[in-house]
């Protein structure tokens, strides 16, 4: 890997700024400026939070269903099985993130090893 590859091109950094930095900082700075009069439990914010959660959920699904890079080498059933096994561990341990992640990973690696 060369230094040039590690730095990348300016176009990608400009895209990061427009599509990543500005959309986040806008909300933080609005919170800083107009923080006083907002009711955290307002109906609009409940809807906004639900849509934001669902968008993140969609991205999680996208990574598992249409995996990028090396994850694509893991068969479909094994990826879904790993998430399912992690979920079971997460629920059984009264919502331990750690138990869920470790179980999912172990399931995937064991499955890969077993399949050869």
């Amino acid at each position, binding site marked *: 890997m060369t230094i040039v590859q590690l730095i990348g091109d300016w176009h990608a950094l400009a895209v990061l700024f427009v*599509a*990543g930095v500005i959309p986040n900082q806008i909300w933080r700075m609005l919170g800083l400026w107009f923080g006083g009069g907002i009711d955290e439990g307002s109906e609009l914010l409940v809807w906004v939070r639900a849509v934001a959660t669902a968008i993140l959920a*969609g991205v999680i699904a996208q990574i598992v269903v249409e*995996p990028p890079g090396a994850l694509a080498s893991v068969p479909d059933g094994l990826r879904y099985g790993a998430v399912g096994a992690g979920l079971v561990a997460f629920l059984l341990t009264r919502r331990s993130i750690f138990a869920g992640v470790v179980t999912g990973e172990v399931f995937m690696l064991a499955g890969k090893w077993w399949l050869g």
Partner: protein
Amino acid sequence: MALPPLDSPQWQSPWRAFAWGLRSITQTILTIVLFVTYLGIGALAHDTHFSLLWALASTLFVWAGPAQIILITTLGSGATIIQSAIAVTVSAIRLFPMVVSVLPLMRTPTTKRRELIFAAHLTAVTLWVECHRFLPQVPRERRIAFVHGLGFGLVSVCLCANTVGYFLAANLTQTLGGAILLLTPLSFLFSTARNSREIADVVALVLGIVLYPLAAKMNSGLDILVSGVAAGTIAYGVHWWREVHA
């Protein structure tokens, strides 16, 4: 490690308060969750052909894990800048109520708005949770310095994790590389599930996952937005229906 009592001379220097904030990152499991999450983000950035500098800049200037994976995943799968920007903007709205609720914990009657700019930038779900936990044990006039230390520590951990994840993805076998990439959906799924206290959050999470593959079949290029708005609105409907019938 326990923080010194509120009237301790330890709190007289803002630098000491910064150092206590920095040290507090060792007192929470969330630091490990963040490390694992950002390890995954670094690997994801590598496998979606972004540069290491790009990944580090996104952590430093965006500083919101969900927004970063939405950005990497949508841009990596060929969405336009506008489509990605819309998805990220919507996901980032949640920062607004977080900033609104966390800044009053640090404010004194003489605090100027510009003194809170860094604290606002550092606000994301982890810092928000930790502020509610730690700040009652910190004298009010030293809270901004403490939060700067805490935030600096967390950002540093994540920058290291990004770098490690990026190089691991570049050098590991396919199986281990796949395992690192799998960290991202697993850690986000379970940390979001853990933070879901209300029925609307749970419904949004489950429906968001189920509806995405359906929306993807439509091939509109706006899949994430279509499934997100649909699932989120149905979740809000469930919340509203329960309120009315409560």
